[in-house]
């Protein structure tokens, strides 16, 4: 099925076996694609390129279609993230309490821009538009843990 794919898109046996197992878990669900993409990213930390043709084949979609869908969302990554993922809220309620300045300080401190990972692979910085913590901003989320009234010191310490 994947035999005529270009170099680098061939799933090795280990990956193929795991993806097939994940696909089997979702068999019979209505609208399984989004849960499958989440499951793959939860397992591998990103969506490995060779996984896409396998998912596509199982769902009767083309590889281009899967790519078009996955890339629509901010959550799915093509490459692994750093050891920590720091999300900073860029939305209005956090702007009103110094969120913009906080984000600037963090970008400078970490030496990276939005979407980038520090060269040592320690932390990836991502923007998020509202974490629902708008009454205790600036809000941040570090590896799924919420942080309110965030300060540069607190965040720098958290990703150290």
């Amino acid at each position: 099925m994947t035999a005529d794919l270009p170099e680098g898109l061939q799933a090795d046996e280990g990956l193929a076996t795991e993806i097939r197992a994940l696909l089997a878990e979702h068999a019979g669900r209505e609208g399984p694609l989004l849960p499958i993409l989440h499951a793959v990213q939860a397992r591998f930390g990103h969506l490995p390129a060779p996984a896409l043709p396998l998912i596509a084949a199982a769902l009767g979609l083309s590889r281009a279609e899967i790519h078009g869908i996955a890339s629509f969302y901010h959550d799915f990554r093509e490459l692994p993230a750093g050891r920590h993922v720091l999300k900073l809220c860029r939305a209005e309620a956090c702007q009103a309490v110094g969120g913009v300045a906080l984000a600037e300080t963090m970008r400078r401190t970490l030496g990276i821009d939005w979407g980038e990972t520090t060269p040592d692979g320690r932390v990836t910085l991502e923007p998020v538009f509202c974490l629902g913590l708008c009454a205790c901003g600036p809000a941040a989320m570090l590896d799924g843990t919420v942080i309110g009234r965030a300060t540069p010191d607190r965040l720098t310490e958290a990703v150290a």
Partner: protein
Amino acid sequence: MRLFLSQDAAAKALGAEQVAEAIRAAAPTAEVVRTGSRGMVWLEPLLEVETSAGRIAFGPVAVADVPGLFADGVPAPDHPRCLGLTEELPWMKRQTRLTFARCGVIDPLDLAAYEAEGGLAGLRRALEMTPAEIVAEVTDSGLRGRGGAGFPTGIKWNTVLGAQAERKYIVCNADEGDSGTFADRMLMEGDPFCLIEGMAIAGLAVEASTGFIYLRSEYPDAIRTMQAAVVAARASGLLGPSVLGSGRAFDMEIRVGAGAYVCGEETSLLNSLEGRRPVVRAKPPLPALQGLFGRPTVVNNVITLASVPVILARGAAFYAGFGLGRSRGTMPLQIAGNVQYGGLFEAGFGLTLSEVVDDIAGGTASGRPVKAVQVGGPLGAYFPRALFDTPFGYEDYAARDGLIGHAGIVVFDDTADMLTQARFAMEFCAVESCGKCTPCRIGAVRGVEVLDRVTRGEPGQIELLQDLCETMRFGSLCALGGFTPYPVLSALSHFPDDFARERKAA
């Protein structure tokens, strides 16, 4: 000794887990019930102690406060963190808590506590009624969609009830993408059975037996609580082939979003659920007739659905007794941004913006004057003080070129620059556009460029901006492109000085 400590994400973000740990060490025999939030975010982590007179509140509690609080065994009323009886706090007393009655009061996953506090009464009543009677009750209550558009819920349900199909769906929109809003999150974390009950009633009303909650990925705590609640509801027979032993089936699943604002738009959401590219669909067909997988579908916001149990339990007239004009019932206001007292405040429609901002929110946290208030999320208008007499209602805000949306109220002090805010609105639209229509996809990018030229003081740009907004308003398929002009033009018309930049020397 029974203690109550919130495990709402806002409480956690302010250290509730560390406080919980400190309490376990300081008072190992105390029973600590983890609840949702009372909504007083400036007092989180909020600790409550059960007494014969009611619960006594202490907050905000820091880890360092804990040893002192428990030095004599029980936290004492003369402790500096003591606030008195929770229910007597002005913030609580002034509210009409219908939808959020149990939030912050009970362990969110304790079904017995849910029932003891009035839960399931609405569903039990609905089980005795015909679908048409349930729909009529919701119609008579005057309930309108709390997700933003304010469409009458009963009318939507009636369309789905009238549609003939083998299979129909209830889809709960828990995408809560609007900045400055967190009511859905708080409800799902604090009283998930209320949403489940509301969805089950909706299922009975339109003869649907399957539900989906589309829950944004930015809310990991809400996802965990909702999933656990669905499992518990199934185990107790609240969900499943025979809801509360009635012989009528209703079950549901939680689906997690993937970080795209436009997926909160109902047709984009349906495409996302189906596993398609989540672009917006043209209407008609209405989702009520051809929704999920082409079948009749109710799409409602979390707060809309969670308001249904109390309507059924206490009757349409009771609910409709609150409010103003055609805005009936209560709305959970989410007070956020630069405020002294931020959080969730549920009240009947009709409070003026001044009452909310100056009085309930206590003005800014910075102590500086309020400059602007954005109401209704990123697509909502910025209101200047001159419009603070606007009463909270769908029509009242529309009459002033604004919208109430999901009732997020974001306060800015006088350090805010409204040109920067307008630019952000355009930038946000450009980032989140689904790309289907040109006025939105290209217009928002142009909008950012035009505003950058305004910043540089180039002449003739304001007319361009106005034309562009006109094109977006009338040429966009959905409210993302269509309403982005609200924040932009309100900033321009109410704060023209911020747009009058001197031309910079090259």
